[in-house]
């Protein structure tokens, strides 16, 4: 092929730059803000931070400074941030594990064992996405009270998997369905049980798709604000998301932004580590036997 003319290179380069800035600017903005002193937040340049400080992060763990100098301490509550952090970690990890376990089982049944009407099962599971979530939390609260799970983290461990499950089942079962029969058949002829064949052969093969399903679940779970703030009431039971929602932003804006970053940074690092695998897994779910 002939080399590209200079204007094509320039056009491509500026598009790449534009896309990068568009995607990263809001993240950068929130990061910069969380590193500012209140003085700089009021008088400084909004786009850069001249004297970075971790004081907003410290404030999440123990109240020290007076906010903005004109608000009394009485208005400011201490936040059990360590507890929130542990709760969040528990919920995120638990939801991902639960979703993966349940959806791998269902997807294997639908994609591999293929009971009669398996397509309709898969469609019915996927169709739960059309149920509008809007005011469902009112009856859902009644369910949680019946199960004695109100104001309990375990309530979220039931609700969150149901939000990611349909997509994961769809993706995993499409992948399992695409794998050729011979892959298992050989092991079965050798006398291995279906379970052995699954755990020894199929599961290791499908690692990229499992990564994709896991990252999708994490993204779904981390995007929820409403369920967490409705179902978790007492501070010691809250996740970071629910806790930050109770901040009064007029007084606590910088601490709130610091809290946002404190949750976001681990999640982003974790997802970034698996980012390539996420794409590979999505691709594998679409390509026959990849």
């Amino acid at each position, binding site marked *: 092929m002939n080399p590209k003319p200079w204007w094509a290179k320039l056009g491509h380069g500026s598009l790449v730059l534009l896309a990068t800035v568009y995607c990263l600017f809001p993240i950068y903005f929130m990061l910069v803000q969380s590193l500012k002193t209140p003085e700089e937040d009021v008088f400084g340049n909004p786009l850069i931070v001249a004297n970075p400080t971790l004081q907003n992060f410290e404030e999440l763990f123990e109240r020290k400074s007076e906010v903005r100098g004109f608000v009394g301490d009485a208005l400011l509550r201490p936040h059990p941030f360590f507890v929130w952090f542990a709760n969040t970690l528990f919920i995120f990890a638990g939801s991902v594990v639960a979703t993966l376990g349940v959806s791998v089982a269902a997807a294997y049944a639908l994609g591999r064992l293929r009971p009669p009407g398996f397509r309709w099962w898969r469609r019915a599971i996927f169709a739960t996405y059309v149920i509008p979530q809007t005011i469902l939390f009112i009856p859902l609260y009644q369910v949680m009270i019946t199960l004695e799970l109100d104001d309990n983290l375990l309530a979220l461990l039931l609700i969150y998997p149901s939000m990611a499950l349909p997509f994961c089942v769809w993706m995993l079962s499409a992948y399992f369905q695409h794998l050729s029969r011979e892959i298992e058949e050989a092991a079965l002829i050798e006398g291995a049980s279906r379970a052995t064949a699954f755990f020894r052969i199929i599961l290791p093969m499908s690692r990229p798709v499992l990564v994709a399903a896991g990252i999708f679940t994490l993204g779904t779970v981390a995007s929820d*604000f409403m369920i967490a703030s409705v179902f978790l009431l007492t501070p010691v039971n809250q996740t970071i998301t629910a806790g930050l929602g109770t901040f009064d932003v007029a007084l606590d804006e910088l601490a709130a932004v610091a809290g946002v970053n404190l949750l976001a940074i681990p999640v982003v690092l974790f997802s970034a580590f698996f980012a390539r695998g996420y794409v590979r897994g999505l691709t594998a779910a679409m390509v026959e036997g990849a």
Partner: protein
Amino acid sequence: MRPRRRRREIRTAYVLLSPAVLLLLTVLAYPLGWEIWTSFTSLSPLQDGGTAFVGLENYRRQFGDPQFWRVATITVVYAALTIAAKLALGFGFALLLARPFRGRALVFLAIFLPWAYPAGVSVIGWYWSLNPPITTAYSIFLGQLKYSVDSVLGGGAWAFGSVMLFNIWRGSSFIGVLLLAGINAIPPELFECAVLESKNPWRRFRLVTVPLLKPLLALGVLLSLTTAFADLANVWMLTAGRIVFPVIGTHAYWLAIKAGQFGPASALSLTLVPFLLGVLLVLFWIFDPLERDAA
């Protein structure tokens, strides 16, 4: 295959399927039933005395209410605008990343991040950055922007628009990555053939890339529809209903929580179901060719 072995296989399949089905039933079946039943009654936490069965009265009154039509229009415009923007940007990202260039891995990461950034909290940061409290360095500028937008489109327009921007920012990242995965799944020989067939890149894009990505486009559209409403719901909860621009979801909250009218609120949110089901049927119709030649 022997029928006995097949029977055992089917039994195993149902056992493996049961946790997923049970989970969905626990979380969805009773609430959905409650919502359908309530939409036929006058249930309200504010009302003394019993709840009356009113039949289709809630629906009848709703369709006669001009406020409902305003809400429905805003909902459709919101959904259409955000989806169009997300698809356009997402396609752009995917095509940009499809071919190798220096630093592609880093640009890919940048495009992946808006979706990976936990939206439950980033919506908090985003919303308060664009609608800042009075005492920040940029609040004067953004305040002026807010008032000029609001004075043209009505109070609350800027806040609503900022949620839209957020949804587009995050959704375009998700769709971009999804489509990139789709492009990777297309065998490269197909593109090589296409280059020989036609010199016009736009024609190649329309006749080769888009049809092959159809199932993924459909999936992306459905998921971005549901997240578009979830984002609004998040901000509604965050600001205790300070969004003045109502869409069907937030208006149903308003009816249920602020006005205590569970009946009309249920009726309103169920009005969405036929439309979403319609979208879903079209989706299945698009998915199916993919599943059939795989089977």
